[in-house]
């Protein structure tokens, strides 16, 4: 049947067959199926996750019809989980949709082992106390967790996973791995076979810029005691030298060479962020280490030995003005070097696996190859336990947010969202949830917020009256548009975590629905 693949065509172009397969194998649990939860799952069911389990103990009320598309009038009074589940199933019959009519808070208290069956739990609209408990359960069971909440014109999304390593981070813009500042012998030798001053103008304008730059860098080094251009003047002079070699004004290859000349000046070796990963204590591997860290350990050895300070070559080149023949030959030279580097890495991976008492063939060639290709771009994300963040947020960051104008509304919402939960714990309702006595709610919320700031070590800080008023006005309303935004982000992060592609967000995302100056807070 060709249909499922065609149906997913537009997303396969983003995360490929492998990403899709990971999604189809995953099982997702949703806690609370108000609009925030329902919208999160809608996006995941459309994308084709394996199964979803909706947990909600409430009955459908009239008010739910006003903010949730996945419920309908005929179901008022019935199980909300059942109604939402039925609609989700309608969206994609390849997904197994189940529901459990139970309150998430009760499940967290009474049956913590329930959560261990899932790949990932999306917990929506939970208050602090339940968040903290669920977080510990999921951390212990090694289940990925995402919190999402909509509250008036604000809300948040927070990932909680011990560690998430990404090989295929697929950044938007990343410098091609061309080694123009450090060509290996085969590439150098190939460049030597080409004469930049060839008389035939057609050949001259079809010499790829990679060759032009390698040769000109070599010429420069010869006349500058082996060094490459480093000062501003050097760089300008180098560019002028390239320009001087043009024999016609329409030579795109020389224009490309001038534009790419900075690649010759780029520092050799690895980036600080990769250095940090290599230095991480997890790269001291043992029998329990993940595949990722075993490969990092191999990478560390590679860089120190045959890599000569560089990672394995990526092996692909961008399109550039060139004759077909020169381009294809160049492509093959890059591929051959990448293959040599891969083989060296593979040997190192095998040796390390053997050393730590594991099957030397337990990491597939494909995975090692992918790691080599992406070695410059690997990422590691770690998330604090939510309890740790709540009790001791990172002080310098918090202080910075409280005084930085760009962050003031977002951090204000962060404090007020937490204050609202404290409020609810004290008074059994959220501030402004019911009509009347708004002034009293405002002053109570303010008192709680001031106390919370004190607990967090920010005694001098205050929140604006306007924002406190605003929070009470919201009265814990779950607006559909806000829920769709917050749920949209939660589903996007789920996809990144499950496909292990792209980089999930670090920190707490605070939605600012007033002027859209939302922020990620690293607390």
């Amino acid at each position, binding site marked *: 049947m060709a249909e499922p693949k*065609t*149906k997913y*065509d*537009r*997303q396969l*172009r*983003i995360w490929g067959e492998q990403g899709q397969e990971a999604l189809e194998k995953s099982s997702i649990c949703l806690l609370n199926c108000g*609009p925030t939860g329902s*919208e999160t799952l*809608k996006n995941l069911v*459309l*994308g*084709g996750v394996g199964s979803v389990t909706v947990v909600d103990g409430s009955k459908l*009320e*009239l*008010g739910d*019809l*006003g*903010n949730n*598309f996945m419920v309908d*009038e005929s179901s008022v009074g019935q199980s909300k989980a059942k109604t939402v589940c039925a609609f989700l199933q309608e*969206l994609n019959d390849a997904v197994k949709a189940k529901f459990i009519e139970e309150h998430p808070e009760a499940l967290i208290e009474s049956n913590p082992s329930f959560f261990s069956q899932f790949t990932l739990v999306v917990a929506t609209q939970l208050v602090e106390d339940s968040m903290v408990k669920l977080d510990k359960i999921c951390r212990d069971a090694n289940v990925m967790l995402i919190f999402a909440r909509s509250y*008036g*014109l604000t809300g948040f999304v927070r990932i909680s996973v011990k560690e998430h390593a990404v090989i295929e*981070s697929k*950044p938007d813009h990343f410098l091609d791995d061309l080694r123009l500042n450090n060509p290996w012998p085969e590439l150098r030798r190939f460049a030597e076979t080409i004469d930049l001053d060839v008389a035939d103008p057609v050949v001259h304008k*079809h010499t790829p810029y990679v060759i032009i730059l390698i040769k000109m860098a070599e010429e420069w080094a010869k006349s500058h005691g082996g060094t490459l251009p480093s000062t501003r003047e050097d760089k300008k002079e180098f560019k002028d030298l390239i320009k001087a070699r043009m024999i016609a004004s329409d030579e795109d290859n020389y224009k490309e060479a001038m534009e790419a000349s900075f690649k010759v000046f780029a520092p050799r070796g690895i980036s600080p962020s990769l250095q940090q990963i290599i230095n991480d204590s997890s790269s001291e591997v043992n029998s329990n280490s993940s595949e990722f860290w075993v490969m990092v350990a191999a990478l560390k050895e590679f860089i120190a030995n045959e890599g000569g300070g560089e990672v394995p070559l990526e092996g692909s080149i961008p*399109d550039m003005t060139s004759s*077909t023949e020169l*381009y*294809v030959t160049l492509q093959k030279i890059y591929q051959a070097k990448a293959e040599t580097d891969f083989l060296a890495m593979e040997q190192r991976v095998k040796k390390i696996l053997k050393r730590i008492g594991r099957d030397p063939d337990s990491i597939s060639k494909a995975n090692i190859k992918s790691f080599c290709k992406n070695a410059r771009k690997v990422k590691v994300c770690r998330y604090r336990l939510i309890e740790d963040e709540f009790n001791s947020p990172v002080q310098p960051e918090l202080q910075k947010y409280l005084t930085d104008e760009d962050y003031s509304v977002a951090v204000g919402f962060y404090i007020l969202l937490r204050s609202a939960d404290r409020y609810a714990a004290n008074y059994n309702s959220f501030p*402004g949830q*019911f*009509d*009347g006595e708004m002034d009293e709610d405002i002053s109570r919320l303010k008192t709680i917020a001031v106390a919370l700031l004190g607990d967090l070590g920010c005694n001098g800080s205050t929140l604006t009256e*306007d*924002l406190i*008023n605003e929070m009470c*006005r*919201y*009265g814990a*309303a779950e*607006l*559909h*548009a806000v*829920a*769709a*935004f917050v749920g*949209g*982000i939660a589903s*996007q*992060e789920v996809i*990144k975590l499950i496909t292990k592609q792209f*980089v*999930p*967000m*670090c920190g707490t995302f605070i939605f600012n629905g007033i*002027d*859209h100056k939302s922020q*990620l807070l690293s607390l």
Partner: protein
Amino acid sequence: MTAATPSRSRDLDKLLLRPGHLVGPNFEPGPELREDIKEYVKVLVVGAGGLGCELLKDLALSGFRNLDVIDMDRIEVTNLNRQFLFRLEDVGKPKAEVAAKRVMERVGGVNIMSHFCRIEDKPLDFYSDFSIIVLGLDSIEARSYINAVACSFLEYDTDDNPREETVKPMVDGGTEGFKGHARIIMPGTTPCFECTIWLFPPQVKFPLCTLAETPRTAAHCIEYAHLIKWDEVHSGKTFDPDNPEHMQWVYSEAVKRAELFGIPGVTYSLTQGVVKNIIPAIASTNAIISAACALETLKIISGCSRTLTNYLTYNGVEGLHTKVTEFVRDRECLVCGPGVLIELDTSITLRKFIDLLEGHPGLLLSRVSVTHRGKNLYMQAPPVLEEMTRSNLDVPLFDLMDKIPKDIVHVNGMAGKGDKKQSCLRKLRVVFNGIDGVTDVDMAGGA
């Protein structure tokens, strides 16, 4: 504390009925506001695709009762991973009709009119009827057209300030993969689409000589088969990207060429992607951008909160980045400015006027149709209308405009040169020379 009586607008009421400090300048909270939005506000959603489906749902659940949706496309299988109002059995049906029906089935009290046609097929009157226009499009040309339509209603007072009752707000969204934007356009106040057209650079095409002589990538081989080889072999037959046999032919030709040159990477999927210029799309980004657009629509209409000023960019590739930029209007903008000033003698016929527009360096219009205050003076199409209005061509424009010495005229036509022509709408300020009441100062104002 009193428990609220059950109501569908339980959550929305908190925002619409309660006063706030961080709200719009004209916010008047209360049940009347909620009822007015239900009863009197009409929202047009342009596009019923990835963004449009989400927008209709979001707006229907944000207190709006009167929605219209316009889209010329039919449902395809590849829409189903994100256009959640459509099912497999809907493939082939008009998007606008199915989307409207599905939302009305689920959200009680909402009335959605669907329009299965091109945006250019609707008269100006159609667009002037809406309180706000929300765009969920994937084409620059379509955005540009709707923008010109909305800006054509705009009039300025003698102090060069936009007259409030002529301002037609727009909210525009767009996505590509994990990235997107949402913006609000208040014609005359914030930049219109044309003021910031540089935000949408034209797509770079491969030079034909590369395709023909020095192919290097799989895409070059595919475009060679598509743009060069097809015409060589199929003389006169146009290539149809929706015909699987045509696509298959291009694919196999591309494979042959790639083998000839030793170029790797030609696949059927890539062939489709290159030939149809497919933009990857996922449910989550569409949901996020549409939600932002719907929320801004609610805020602009109700004043229940300050709004975005005026452009939000979103990127979820690496972590999560949102950025708000306040772009500024281009004071010289042909579209949202006061209109191109055209000075005429009272004797000029409509035919002469049309000829003049074709030669006007700032306009370069061809196939021109002319309307004045909703009245068609000359229409190029459909043939019935052309015949009905043809006799006007030899009448002086001054007479056709009821001898009004100075007024706005709307012209519709094709702009640009060569193969870059696109349909467009322009607002002109026509001033007749030598008529009392028109002073030099007046005319200088818009020059």
